[in-house]
């Protein structure tokens, strides 16, 4: 109270006539918002603890609860907004770096929403995906410059290792530690069922999930947590994580509180110790060092696994990608400004990096200008929200998209952006056994499968409308896109015409 007081962001509105005092809300809230007042036989709320995760709203049997924005305001000021002012109060009270979770919520242009997709009319026919074959199979990996023939004259079909996906969507890296065991189980199950891959993130691979290896990308990040030979060999591909869209230029920090039991064993670090990933890989201070790590990993796995290099979309991403494409990497994963995170410094998340649409367009064009686009495949993420975003990304030049936030939403996440507290009421971003148990991995897997299936159907509908019956004929097909309300520079970078042109 007093000078440090920050007014609650939300109000808990309870319809007392509907409330049956069942106390479900109280049990569901790990933040301790709801309480039962025995004396007055009614529910109370401490709204200052509320993060608006909607758990109580979703579970209230009489739909008695609403979480609304607290109408209490500072005097209107377009420059000194309430969030800016409150952040100053927090930092004046304690000299800490502010933390946030999930993707940047700032109102910057979402280019996907300024791009429209084409359809066939008259001069060529749209194709009905319910009646004609419509193909979304994707191969990721490098393609050689020339075909080779065997002595008998037939094609030599040997290629460097490739990943085959049934649809152009993968799950982004989310570490065991930042998310729960049940989340990984659901992702692994769904990846196997839908013919795609999930990604361990930098937390190692739990022993129970080695069985899903063919649908797993194992990550090697700057902390090297959980990395050993069996781990590298377990996955279908290895990803070197150089950066993340939500926090380019910095490492990661999993607090000791989350490093419990299995998390500690999987990460190969003592229980309760902080897991700190450094900002750089300390064996990679330049592009030639990256090449050495790429080949070290290939040597360790007998050149049987494609190596992915994941980078954050930053200002000179085109040149960086060009360097990576010549480093021996098979796939480049680019994570955009709006990509999610389990925890990141607020200032970094909201102010560093560039939108994925621009980064993707610049990288794809640069690799083509240099004639090396076939050296690598491109995976983009941060943030892909719908099947239409996937179609637009592929048409801009992506081979596939990775989804993290969308997958978490499918599993129940309400985007309250409080992952860093470890008290996820939906059992996703937590290691608290009671909370983890709330997420049924079978149900979560089913919901992920539904989501991917639905998106794939929508991708096929959109492709069919354009008269395209295979996803590879959409890749880089920028003629199928038009911008609306974009300036000439934006259109030039995206490599698309304006609507009406």
């Amino acid at each position: 109270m007093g000078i440090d007081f920050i007014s609650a962001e939300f109000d808990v509105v309870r319809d007392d006539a509907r409330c049956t005092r069942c106390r479900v809300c109280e049990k569901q809230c790990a933040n301790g918002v709801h309480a039962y007042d025995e004396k007055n036989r009614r529910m109370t709320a401490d709204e200052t603890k509320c993060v608006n995760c909607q758990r109580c709203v979703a579970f209230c049997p009489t739909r008695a609860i609403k979480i609304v924005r607290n109408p209490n305001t500072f005097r209107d000021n377009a420059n000194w907004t309430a969030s800016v002012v409150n952040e100053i109060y927090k930092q004046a009270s304690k000299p800490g770096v502010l933390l946030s979770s999930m993707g940047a919520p700032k109102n910057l242009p979402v280019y996907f929403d300024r791009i429209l997709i084409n359809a066939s009319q008259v001069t060529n026919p749209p194709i009905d995906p319910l009646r004609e074959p419509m193909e979304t199979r994707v191969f990721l990996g490098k393609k050689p410059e020339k075909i080779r023939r065997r002595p008998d004259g037939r094609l030599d079909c040997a290629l460097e290792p490739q990943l085959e996906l049934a649809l152009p969507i993968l799950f982004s890296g989310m570490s065991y530690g930042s998310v729960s065991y049940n989340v990984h189980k659901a992702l692994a199950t769904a990846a196997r069922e839908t013919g795609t891959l999930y990604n361990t993130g930098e937390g190692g691979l739990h022993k129970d999930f080695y069985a899903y290896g063919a649908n797993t990308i194992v990550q090697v990040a700057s902390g090297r947590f959980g990395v050993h030979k069996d781990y590298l060999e377990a996955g279908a591909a290895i990803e070197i994580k150089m950066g993340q869209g939500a926090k380019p230029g910095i490492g990661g920090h999993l607090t000791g509180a989350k490093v419990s039991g299995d998390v500690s064993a999987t990460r190969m670090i003592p229980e309760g110790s902080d897991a700190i990933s450094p900002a750089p890989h300390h064996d990679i201070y330049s592009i030639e060092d990256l090449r050495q790590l790429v080949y070290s990993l290939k040597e360790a796995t007998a050149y049987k696994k494609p190596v992915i290099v994941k980078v954050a979309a930053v200002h000179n991403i085109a040149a960086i990608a060009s360097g990576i494409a010549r480093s021996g990497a098979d796939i480049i994963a680019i994570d955009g400004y709006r990509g999610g995170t389990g925890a990141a410094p607020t200032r970094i998340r909201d102010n560093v990096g560039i939108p994925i649409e621009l980064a993707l367009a610049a990288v794809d064009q640069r690799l083509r200008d240099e004639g090396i686009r076939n050296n690598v495949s491109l995976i983009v993420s941060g943030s892909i929200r719908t099947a239409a975003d996937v179609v637009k990304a592929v048409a801009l030049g992506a081979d596939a998209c990775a989804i993290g936030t969308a997958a978490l939403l499918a599993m129940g996440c309400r985007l309250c952006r409080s992952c860093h507290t470890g008290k996820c009421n939906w059992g996703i971003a937590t290691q608290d056994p009671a909370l983890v148990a709330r997420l049924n991995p079978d149900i979560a897997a089913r919901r992920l499968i539904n989501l991917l299936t639905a998106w794939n159907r929508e991708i096929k509908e959109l492709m069919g409308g354009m008269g395209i019956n295979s996803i590879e004929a959409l890749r880089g097909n920028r003629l199928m896109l038009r911008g609306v309300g974009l300036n000439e520079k934006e259109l030039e970078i995206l490599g698309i015409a304006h609507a009406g042109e």
Partner: protein
Amino acid sequence: MLQKEGQVRIPSGCAIAAVISKTGEKIGGEKIVAGIRTMHERSNGLGGGFAGYGIYPDYKDFYALHVFYDDNGARTDCENALKDLFEIVKAENIPTRKNPAIKDAPLIWRYFVAPLPSRVAAMQIDEREFVARAVTRINSTFRGAYIFSSGKNTGTFKAVGFPEEVADFYRLEDYAGYSWTAHGRYPTNTPGWWGGAHPFSLLDWSVVHNGEISSYDTNRRFIEMFGYKCHLKTDTEVITYIFDYLVRRQGMTLREASSVVAAPFWTTIARKPEEEQRELTYIRNMFSGLLITGPFSIVLGFSGGLLALNDRLKLRSMVVAEKGNTTYIASEEAAIRAMEPDLDSIRSPMGGEPVIVTVNKGVLEDGN
């Protein structure tokens, strides 16, 4: 102001026809005109053209360059550039006759040339690559000059007009070759530029095409990585480059190249024997950016043969017929019947099924 072909992408519908003698017998130009004339309704007078093979036996060892010039200034500049790269053994106007329907004719020249061996050696490339690069460079950097035919013992003739008028203009009956292709165009606006008519040619490749491909920009952006420049923004142009790239530069067979552009569906591949599955999967993966989707029927002409191919859903009509040693291909059966009423066989090839007709080995005495 209306934009010229190449400044804007213009979709068009079309008619195509082709004829080839497998025994290398000479077929007069009037034969193919009879076929394409029948499909008058499939064009709208905004483009027609022909390609003939074996038509220049006296100059069969020289590349025949057909060039449109806006004016004599453009011609002088281009000829200077040509002299720098080639020995020109003959330069002449292409003979034409007045036709009231053919207007705004550019200057139309023909050169028989041989690349200067010293220039070819200096670039460390083979002769055909040298010619291809020279054509690409002149077409992309010389204002008012456009080389629209560049093969040996073959020539393309095209203009804005209905195909039968174009044939009359170029006196096509004066030429005879072992194969011919023809095109009548139905563009969706008025380009009014002769270079935009079809066939599109590079070296001895020529393509006539009916359709509007939906994969255009994917194909264009892929092929432009390998030194090609799609000036005209037409399907035909990019399809020609794709075949040139796959067959001449990658060394693929026409059948393999057909499996790239009209790849079998994955479900079809899954039913093939294991070895073939592996090859077809490899081809689709390796050249995924060259898969062509959307409707097309094409006839690809080359020295010694023709390839006819439909898109894999067969969204455009195309029929193939035989009579003795002669094969006929056209958008409509009526066009074939106009060329040869009494046929041995006629059929409609499946979508994605290449029909490859070659002149029997050894029968071409003029050395194709």
